[in-house]
Structures are given as C-alpha cells and as structure tokens.
C-alpha cells in the first residue's frame, strides 16, 4: 500500500563520502604538500635509527662544531653531536609533544565547551568567565610560572600550553553547541526525555568534532612553535634529549659563527608547522559543507 521508495543508489553510502573527500583533496595541491611534509617528517622520526648511524645523545668533543658536510649533513653541535640526527630524533619529541598538547586541549576544551553551550545560563557564565581568565592570562607568565612551580621540563611546558590552548576549543565547541542545541534532532531528543549528558555525548560532541579537528590541525603548527619558544626560554625538554626549541635556543647563541646549529632545527620547526597549517587550511576547505560541489 505504501509506495516503495527506492533508496537513492546502493553504492552511494560510504564510498560516495570517500571519493568526494579524495576528489576534494586532489583539487587541493597545497593540502597534499602539507600531508607530504608531515609524512616525511614522521617517517624520518620513526625510522631515525635506520636513517642515521649517529647517536642523538652521545657526545663527541673531538667533533665539536663541525660545519655541514658529507658526514654531518647539518653539522654538529657544541658537544659534537650530529645535528641531523638530533633533528630527526627531535621530531619524535617535538611532534609528539605538540600533538599530545593539542589533542588533550582539544578534547578537554570541546567537552567543556559543549557543556557550556548546551546548558547555557550560569553554567555557561561560570565556564566562560574562567575561560576569559585563561585567555587573558599572558601565556608566557602562565607557562613560566607553571614551569617555575613544577620544574622546567617538557611535561610542564606541555601542561602550560594545553591550559593556554583550552579556551580556544571551549569557545569553538561552545559556539557549535549553541547552534547544534537548536537543531531539531536535539530538540527531538529532549522530547524523548533522555538525559542531558546523553545528549551532549551522543549529539553535541560528535557534531562539533569536525571544526575541532580542523582547529587542531591549524593549532598544531602554532603549538610546535610555542613548544619551541618555551624551549627557547629554557622551559623545554630536559637535556640531553633532543628537542627542536631547546636546540634552537642553544644554537641561537652561536648563530653568527655556527649558523647551522639553530638554522636546521629552525627549518624543521618551519616545515612541521607549515605542514600542519596547510593540512588544516585544506581540511577547512574540504570538510566545510559550504565549499561542497
């Protein structure tokens, strides 16, 4: 008796989404460039022990401050370690730290933001005032004070940056939540009398995830730089671990004579940061429904 509606096309489902994505990525050469840069860096970091025969930690005073050459592509540092080796091993730390920071901040931030946006009223007020405080806080003071309190090491630097980054995600997620909670599917869920946390978890958060992911990739570039800056100010990884910012910080003092010391880790920061930014920009174009077609 009912008209049997045909489903649009059997193959449409996942395949359509994927091919669409691929199509859009292909149209975005910059994004491909970004992915390649990160991919190369990640591969270097992952396969570091097979790529270089030097030890990133072991010192060799006899080889101190060698300029770039066939045996030391990026030269050596003040205790004779191969800078190329340290840069690629450093990718593990620097990229790892940045990704952790941003993902942690992104997760915490979007949950808090979803809660603020969904509940509104005083919950929103309190959360957003706290976020105002965090936003208003001079990043550096927070990071340095935290580092000074807990000890200047990478973990604390990461903690500080995460805290600083959270408000961005809270704002983003809150904004999304504000619009999502007006969506009929949320209104509908309310009429079923499911509880608020279910709604937040099942409806609000999954639907804010796309902008959050975009923001995460965009933030990664920034974070790498921030980690490096904190490293530059002596709040980074503990020696002798290789970390780009710390390397730059030390190398910076030798910029005039041993230019390679700060330049190559600087280049690595530049590549990683641009890579993530390109990906983020690309994702924004690709995942943004408005740019569909």
């Amino acid at each position, binding site marked *: 008796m009912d*008209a*049997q*509606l*045909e489903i*649009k*096309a059997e193959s449409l489902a996942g395949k359509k989404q994927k*091919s*669409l994505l691929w*199509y*859009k990525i292909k149209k975005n050469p910059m994004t491909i460039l970004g992915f390649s840069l990160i991919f190369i860096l990640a591969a270097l970091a992952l396969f570091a022990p097979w790529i270089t025969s030097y030890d990133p930690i072991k010192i060799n005073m006899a080889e101190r401050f060698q300029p770039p050459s066939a045996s030391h592509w990026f030269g050596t540092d003040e205790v004779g370690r191969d800078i190329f080796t340290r840069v690629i091993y450093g990718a593990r730390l620097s990229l790892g730290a940045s990704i952790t920071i941003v993902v942690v901040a992104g997760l915490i931030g979007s949950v808090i933001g979803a809660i603020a946006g969904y509940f509104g009223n005083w919950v929103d007020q309190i959360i957003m005032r706290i976020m105002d405080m965090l936003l208003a806080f001079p990043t550096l003071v927070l990071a340095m004070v935290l580092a000074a309190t807990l000890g200047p090491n990478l973990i604390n630097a990461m903690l500080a940056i995460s805290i600083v980054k959270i408000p961005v995600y809270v704002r983003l997620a809150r904004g999304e939540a504000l619009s999502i909670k007006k969506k009929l599917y949320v209104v509908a869920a309310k009429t079923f009398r499911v509880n608020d946390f279910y709604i937040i978890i099942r409806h609000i958060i999954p639907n804010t995830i796309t902008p959050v992911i975009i923001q995460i990739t965009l933030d990664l570039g920034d974070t790498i730089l921030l980690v490096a800056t904190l490293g530059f100010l002596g709040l980074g990884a503990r020696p002798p671990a290789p970390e780009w910012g710390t390397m730059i910080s030390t190398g910076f003092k030798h910029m005039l004579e041993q230019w390679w010391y700060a330049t190559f880790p600087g280049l690595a920061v530049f590549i990683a940061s641009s890579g993530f930014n390109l990906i983020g920009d690309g994702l924004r174009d690709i995942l943004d429904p408005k740019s569909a*077609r």
Partner: protein
Amino acid sequence: MINIEELSITFSTFHGKVHVLDKVSLSVNRREILAIVGESGSGKSVTAYSILGLLDKNAEISNGHIYFDEEDLTKLSPNKIQKYRGKRIGMVFQEPMSALHPTMRIGDQLVNVIKRHRKLSKKDAYPIMLDMLKDVHFDNPEDIAKKYPHQLSGGMRQRIVIALAMSGQPELLIADEPTTALDVTIQAEILNLIKELVQKHNTAVLLITHDLGVVKEVGDRVCVMYGGNIMESGSVDQIFESPRHPYTKALLSALPNHVDRSERLQEITGEIPDLKNRPEGCIFYSRCSEGKSTCTEKAPACMQVSEAHHVYCWEVHS
C-alpha cells in the same frame, strides 16, 4: 522579449558531469507573467541564473542560446552581462532576509543600485529611492530607508528586494520563489504587488515557484519542468483545465486541495533519475503511469496540442 532556445546546462562535479538542463526552450513577452513550476531539483533556478550569467563556476552552457532583444546573452563577456543585470533584467530571490545586506541600511542599498543604473550622485538618487519605496507600498519611506533588514518583517523585506530589482526599471523581472518564505496573507500582498508593477512598467516576468496555487493566481502562461526538461507549457487555463502530460496530471492530483478527506492522495512514486546519465528516452518514464516502450527509446518531441499549448510526451503524440 526573452527567448531561450534549446538551452542545455552541464555542471561538472566530482562524480562527473551532471546534465541539469536539457534543451529547454521558453520565451516571455512584455507584460506577461510566465510561471515555471516543477519539483525541487527540476532546474528552475538554474534556468533563471543562466539568463543573468550568475551560474556557478562549474557550470557550462553546452547548448542553446538565450536571446534578449536579439542579443545572445550566452555570448556576452562578464563585463557586458553586468550591464544587463539590474538595469534591463531584475531578479528577486526566495529568501528576503538573506538577500539583503545585513549591515547596510535599506536606503543605502537602494541608493547604491540607483546610482549605478541611472548614473546619479548619491544626493540625486535619494529622492528616487524614496519614490521606489513608495512604489512598493511603504508610506513612510524616510523611516524605512534608515532601517536595517533585520528590523523589518519578512514581507517588508521582500518588498525591499522587489524594489531593488525594479530600481533599474528592468524590462524583464525574474522572481525565483519570491513568496515561499512568506505567510499566505503576505504572499497574497506580494503577488499583487508584482502584478501591479507589471501593469505599471510593462515588465515581463519570469516567475519561478513550486506552488501551483501561486501559478494559478498570477501566471499568464505556465511551463512545467521536470528533471531539466520542459514537460508541458501553455496558458494557465490550458494547464489547469486540460493538462495533457502525465506528469502535470499527476502533479495536480497529488494536491490535497480537491480530494475528499476519505480518499487517498495520488502519489508519484520513485525519484528523478540520475541526471548524470540521462536516459535516452523520456526523463519521466520511470515514474510515469502511462509509459510504454517507445518512451524509453527517444526523447519526446514537442507537440502542439492547441494554440500555445505544447506537450513533450509520446503518449500525447499517439
């Protein structure tokens, strides 16, 4: 006035080329209101946009011509077509809220357009702007001119949009679902306004809608579109009194208007076929209740059933 001949438009998308319009021909005369009806996705808006060269970047006119007083608009450069926009051809869109610049005063928006079309200074354009507002039934044009769009109701906004479109005193007015977002009572006002302006300025109107009621109310002639093809065209009376195309008939009987409450409504089963691979024959065949084998073989040719009443259907041929 305007004459569209065998217009075909293709969009390149990631799945491939979508043939959205297929040999659409229609024409509108001065002082005439031509209504285009058809369900969502049938190509009504694309037809309208193609006239003003406002198609998206991925569109391509693969066939046909659009003659506007002997000039083929499809052949014009973007710069030249710009001269037509607003000046000779006006356009009204569906959503009155989003069609107006949200942070610019109504008066300024109108003045900007008037300035351009009549080559006037801002000061000289102002009184003309006030007249235009009066034309669309605002009694206090000065006040209105100072307002922002969000301070007006939907009906008021739509009148502004119409004023904007009319400000260049165009010869052709294209109205793409101008009342869909409005209440029935306001809709009636707007439709009356359009009728009135047509009378006053001798404008030709291309009215796009999916509301058959609206068509009946204001249209002189009707084009029924389906899947990028014209199915049937004729005067309002011809179409409503004696529809010949199965699609037109189905459309009319799907309306609950004159059906007894105990009866079931007529449904049109199925969906528009994939426009990427348009079928060889009639596009409506898959949903047609009267279809037969010839329909799948060749696209139906135009059939004149009476004066100015054309149908594209093999069934009618026979």
